[in-house]
């Protein structure tokens, strides 16, 4: 037992040395996750900021100016042009210079004063339906606020029903709060899986694997010695990403670190198991890398990172049940944003435990058989 532990320790030491000694690998492992977090934190947002819009105010009244002023003041929109002709609208949208054009009808103020509804036409560039949808939502909110002001100023009663929204965990509904904790899981999965897959494939390709097999190492010891360093590096990467989330993006951490790391370690075990499984199939490093990459695509796309799982077709929702990343993202969200304790995480923990066990068993079985 002691001898076995010593051997595993030697393998772990060797693996970590091999990763850390090469500056190119070291940078790839340590700096890249931080950069990705920062870059994606800024780029991957569905919130609109300063989106360009054009105004076509055909009323030129106090009311229409007030409405446009509200749009300008929202911080969401940024007026790039005041149009005077209807023909100017199309080119602005076609060339993507404006995301939306707001057209106010000539009788806007008169209609409002007369107690009639006054239409505000909004034309949105639907090439990215998502952005367009967001933009329309924002315009709707601005118009609502305008209506409320108008009623107040003209002594009119407020609408009978008021909607009082309250968002839990992320009061301002910032996409970033959702995305960055999710990246903690995605980035670490990508690199731990690759690391585990490549470390065995490299030994196989360079012939050192045979050398390892003629030493007293048992297959289980080799697997442990390969899995633990990859997990350790995964933990460091996850920590880096968490630091970016807290120190750079200032997303408040609501839960307990112990809980989070317990969950992450289980997740990393599943990811490493997957990597080891890939490496037991692949003959060369190239194959290991390509297979890992091909696997990573559906796992990351169908994890809830970019699109909500609940809006996927049922068949695909079933597939996500075997995706460890799905549970990891949910887990990080719960702990990070909601402050959930271990008892609440059980629905995430047991599937990951099963996936990890299945992957590691399959990898161990493949190892034994590949040695034939």
């Amino acid at each position, binding site marked *: 037992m002691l001898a076995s532990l010593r051997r595993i320790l*030697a393998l772990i030491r060797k693996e970590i040395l091999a990763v850390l000694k090469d500056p190119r690998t070291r940078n790839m492992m340590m700096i890249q996750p931080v950069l990705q977090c920062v870059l994606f934190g800024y780029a991957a947002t569905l919130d609109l900021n300063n989106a360009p819009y054009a105004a076509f105010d055909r009323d030129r009244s106090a009311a229409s100016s007030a409405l446009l002023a509200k749009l300008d003041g929202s911080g969401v929109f940024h007026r790039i042009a005041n149009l005077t002709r209807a023909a100017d609208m199309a080119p602005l949208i076609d060339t993507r210079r404006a995301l939306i054009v707001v057209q106010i009808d000539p009788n806007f103020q008169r209609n409002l004063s007369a107690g009639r509804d006054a239409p505000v036409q909004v034309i949105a560039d639907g090439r990215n339906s998502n952005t367009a949808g967001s933009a329309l939502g924002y315009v709707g909110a601005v118009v609502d606020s305008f209506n409320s002001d108008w009623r107040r100023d003209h002594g009119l009663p407020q609408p009978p029903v008021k909607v009082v929204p309250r968002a839990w965990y992320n009061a301002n509904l910032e996409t970033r709060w959702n995305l960055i904790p999710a990246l903690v899981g995605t980035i670490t999965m990508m690199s731990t899986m690759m690391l585990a897959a490549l470390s065995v494939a490299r030994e196989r390709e360079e012939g050192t694997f*045979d050398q390892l*097999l*003629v030493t007293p190492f048992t297959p289980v010891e080799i697997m442990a010695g390969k899995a633990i360093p990859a997990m350790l590096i995964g933990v460091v990467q996850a920590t880096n990403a968490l630091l970016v989330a807290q120190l750079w993006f200032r997303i408040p951490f609501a839960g307990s670190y112990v809980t989070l790391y317990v969950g992450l370690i289980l997740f990393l075990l599943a990811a490493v198991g997957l990597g080891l499984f890939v490496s037991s199939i692949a003959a060369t490093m190239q194959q290991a890398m390509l297979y890992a990459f091909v696997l990573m695509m559906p796992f990351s796309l169908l994890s809830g990172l970019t699109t909500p799982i609940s809006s996927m077709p049922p068949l695909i929702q079933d597939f996500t049940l075997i995706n460890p990343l799905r549970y990891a993202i949910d887990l990080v969200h719960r702990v990070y944003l909601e402050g959930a304790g271990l008892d609440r995480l059980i629905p995430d923990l047991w599937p990951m435990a099963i996936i990890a066990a299945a992957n590691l068993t399959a990898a161990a079985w493949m190892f034994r058989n590949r040695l034939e």
Partner: protein
Amino acid sequence: MAAAAGPVIRGRGLGKTFHRKTGETVQALDEVSFEVAAGSLTALVGPDGGGKTTLIRLVAGLMGLDRGELTVLGVDVGADPQAVQDRIGYMPQKFGLYEDLTVQENLDLYADLHGVPAADRRRQYPQLMEMTALEPFTRRLAGQLSGGMKQKLGLACTLVRAPALLLLDEPTVGVDPLSRRELWDIIDALVRDQGLPVLLSTAYLDEAERCEHVVVLRQGKVLAQGPPAQVRALAAGRTFLTTPPAGQSAREALAGFLDDPAVIDASPDGGRIRIVRDGSPAPPSPGAAVLEPATARFEDGFMMLLQAAAQRGGGVPTPAAEPSPPPPAATASPERREPVVEVRDLVRRFGAFVAVDQISFDVRRGEIFGLLGPNGAGKTTTFRMLCGLLSASGGTLRVAGADLRRGAASARQKIGYVAQKFSLYGQLSVEENLDFFASAYGLHGERRRERIAWAMTQFELGPVAHQLGGQLAGGYTQRLAMAAALLHQPQILFLDEATSGADPLARREFWGRITDLARQGVTIIVTTHFMAEAEYCDRIAILDSGRVLAEGAPAEIRALGRTAANPEPTMEDAFIAVIEQARAGPAPRQAA
């Protein structure tokens, strides 16, 4: 041969320096001047890292020259490499065959690249196929050919159109004696019949002997050049043969001779010992052995050249007489020692293909046992089964009392293994490699420090302790691999083609160590393509098509090759005779 007036290659004062990433510079070639005459066969020989490959690449226009002038086929290569590349044939050390293309597709590709017209192909292909005996395999993927066949295909690819000059970089490395002979028949025919000038590099000194002109390179400098006879002449009158004292094998007696400072080289030769001495008058030799004068070979002169160069100083010392501990007296005579490796009716199948077919042999403690055989004979498969890397399809095997495949992992504690290409961690330093393998074998604390220190001194790894494994020169890699395999003092050492591609000096050094280990009671199993090395073994077995064709002491095997025409065959003659006999005959035969 119209333009045969001048030399086809003329190099004057060639210099080439490499800058390593670590900042050190390596002088790969220094003031090298040489010529290759039209229609001649020229060989480059010398220790590893001597500059042979660099020189051939310079001639091929693959590298820029730092100093000197080099004209090939009358063209300044540095200025216009393409003009040279259009006309020559070049086979790199690791010939770049496209392994996922078939034999025919590889040939077609090179024919297309050289613009060979269809009419010429119809004439040329059958000739090439006949010459290389690849005809039956034209539809096979190149990656599935044996080592020897790959080399022949590589050669065929360079010959699809008649080149004006042929460059071959170590064409026979890793090739078995049979294929090697076939390759040489092709090369000889090209030079003799077509007057094709050939420049090749080789680690086999008997090959150099067949060339018209030899250039000996060491550390980037030319030590000698001229016809092989000129080098041979250096050792004339200094080469002797002697018979080992009764009860001692040639190998065991060698060490005694090598301790004599006047002896430059001693090697086993057909049951006797070949000795090259320096000029000093022969003192009474140990055991008062009788020294019979012998005809000098190229190898003898070559050893003298290297010895002299090393004495002039500058560079790596030749294998220093290491302060080996006094050998413990052998506990029992070999016959009474117990077998530590027992193989009975071992079979290994890959699908329908039988790679190893019911082989049986024993190896006793302290023996050096050699497995010889052509490429694809099943040596490596047998080896991998012995080491527990592959399971047997049938039969039994016991190594140090256990089947390593099925037994406990701790049984592997008793063996050491050096793979065909020395497999060590390239990203770790020499010291870290040793440290890892020591821990892998369960050494720790004081004991680990002790063994690592032992390995460092024994294998002279001190100077490179902090260098990365991947950046070591060939000789050091082999030593490191040996050191790593010996840290835990195994009872049995497996060496798979450990000397493939090594230069003669490194091979002598290697066998010196093996002899020492055997004396200390370590059992050693080796495979090799150098038939001369088989002489170091106590017993050898020749394998072909997965069966043991012959087994016995070197003298017994040699006797199998005896014919009326060749009363004193070399090991290589015997080897080829045994294989050819078996392949011709209907059933394989089991020799004693």
